[in-house]
């Protein structure tokens, strides 16, 4: 029996919401990055779902690009966190607050 497409879409929407909420409420920069990755992966899931449902390959090709971009973004993000940690000895976003209004 085939799994209906709605299930995939609901799962990916749930993943996306988890990512958004994670970004908004977590204060650890590394966890915020994990949440961003979650958002990108939820979009990947949607792309693959539609690709298989519509029977065209654009979505799956796009996913490869997105994975490469996500990897690059994670690498840069972690490097930036390390650079900041060397200066400030914290990754807590509440303490990273030189700039205000």
């Amino acid at each position, binding site marked *: 029996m085939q799994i209906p497409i709605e299930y995939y879409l609901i799962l990916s929407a749930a993943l996306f919401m988890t990512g958004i909420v994670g*970004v908004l409420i977590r204060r650890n920069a590394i966890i915020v990055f994990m949440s961003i990755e979650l*958002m990108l992966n939820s979009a990947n899931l949607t792309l693959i779902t539609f690709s298989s449902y519509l029977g065209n390959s654009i979505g799956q090709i796009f996913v490869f690009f997105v994975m490469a971009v996500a990897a690059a973004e994670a690498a840069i993000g972690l490097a930036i966190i390390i650079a900041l940690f060397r200066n400030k000895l914290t990754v807590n976003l509440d303490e990273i607050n*030189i700039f205000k209004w």
Partner: protein
Amino acid sequence: MNIDSIISDLIFIKPEIAIAATLVLIVLVDLISPKSKTALPYISLLGIAIAGVFVVQQFGTAEFAFKTSLSSGMFAADDFGSFFKIIVLLASVFVIFFSISSSEIKSVNDHLGEYYTLMFGMILGMFFMVSASDLVLIFISIELLSLSSYVLAGFVKNTVRSSEASLKYVIYGGVSSGIMLFGISLIYGLTGTTNLYEINSIIQIQSFPHITFLIATLFITVGLGFKISAAPFHFWTPDVYEGAPLPITAYLSVASKAAGFAVLIRFIKITFINSIDHHGNWELLNIIDWRSIIVLLSILSMTLGNFTALWQDNLKRMLAYSSIAQAGYMLLGIAVLSDQGLTATMIYFIVYLFMNLGAFFVVMLIANEIGSEDIEDYKGLGKTMPFLGVTLAFFLLSLAGIPPTAGFIGKVVLFIALVDANMIAVAVIALLNTVVSLYYYVRVLKNLYLVQVDEEKPVIKLSFANGFVIILLAAPILIFGVYFTPIVNFAKNSINILGF
């Protein structure tokens, strides 16, 4: 699509190839002679010049490269794209001049190779952005631009300010690109394609679940709104602009914004167009009320930017809010949804390029001398740095839109477009905003000239090269302020987006 057509289409991306080749060349030169960094800016300028020649040659072409079907492709080589490529290249040339004399960049002299490499990464991303007619290419090129600019924003990595700016940028940027990607995936699901032209032909005949399509489009608008730093997606702007090294701030505020605008305009015009009447008004499909959305974004950006700028004490941060407000003005031209409005936005962009870069450059030169960007520290600088004081005043007055500067022409053309489209209320709001903005621009002038300083300070000399760059930036503002036919014609001739 076969391999022969891909190879033959490469002639349409000659400027991009030149930029990519320069990027590789910079890496190689840096590898071969790691000690000497003096040649790098000149290699960069050479690469930009070559790319510039190719872009100018490309004016007049209107072709798809990398076709995905008979009538559409990934990449549209057209005048509209070339116009924004010229803007990006001009901004790059000036930013390279800025980098040569910036004391912040000198403090990381060992990493100049990476600096210019990343800058060319940004240029490459922006070049593909302004010509992209496929959501896949739009996403990848925006990411190419973003990833390079995240690193450049934190380039002076031993200062907390710079690292903090970079971290904030990467988090806001990551979230907005995640949201945008989710929107793209929904659009792909609804239409089965990622090509803007194909999406257009599909939404003309089919009807969709309206709300899903609206949400997906708004998600994409979030990603683009982030790039042009329009409110309410502007929260990164002041922090990143303040923390990043000044040449990069200037670059982000002009080039990256230009590329974002180009993508936004292309996205709206190609995807949602129904027809264009002979007056050049765009009849959009009534799936999404673009005019209301853009007017809302624009009024929010103008008001928020101008009113928050009122109580800023750091000049860089004030200019950041002012650039949010400027994005609001430029959005007005798009909200008109006609060729006239688009021309007005493009004219404004040419003017904005010179006046904003100029303001940032003078602020950078002053910060090099006094080590501060605080408006309170500018007291009496009109006497100790006469030339910088006058030119800063000139650039700020142009940003405020005072005649006879070109900033005035830019605003007048925008307001005429608004009034012609019967958007009087919006024009009045924009006008009132201009008045508010005058207050904070003039506050800087007051500190420069009117505040009495007790101690006598010696006059600080300006190097000839820097003075020359300032004149290069100031002269067009003065010239276009009185003789604006060339920029109007240039903008009018380059509004042709491929297909319409």
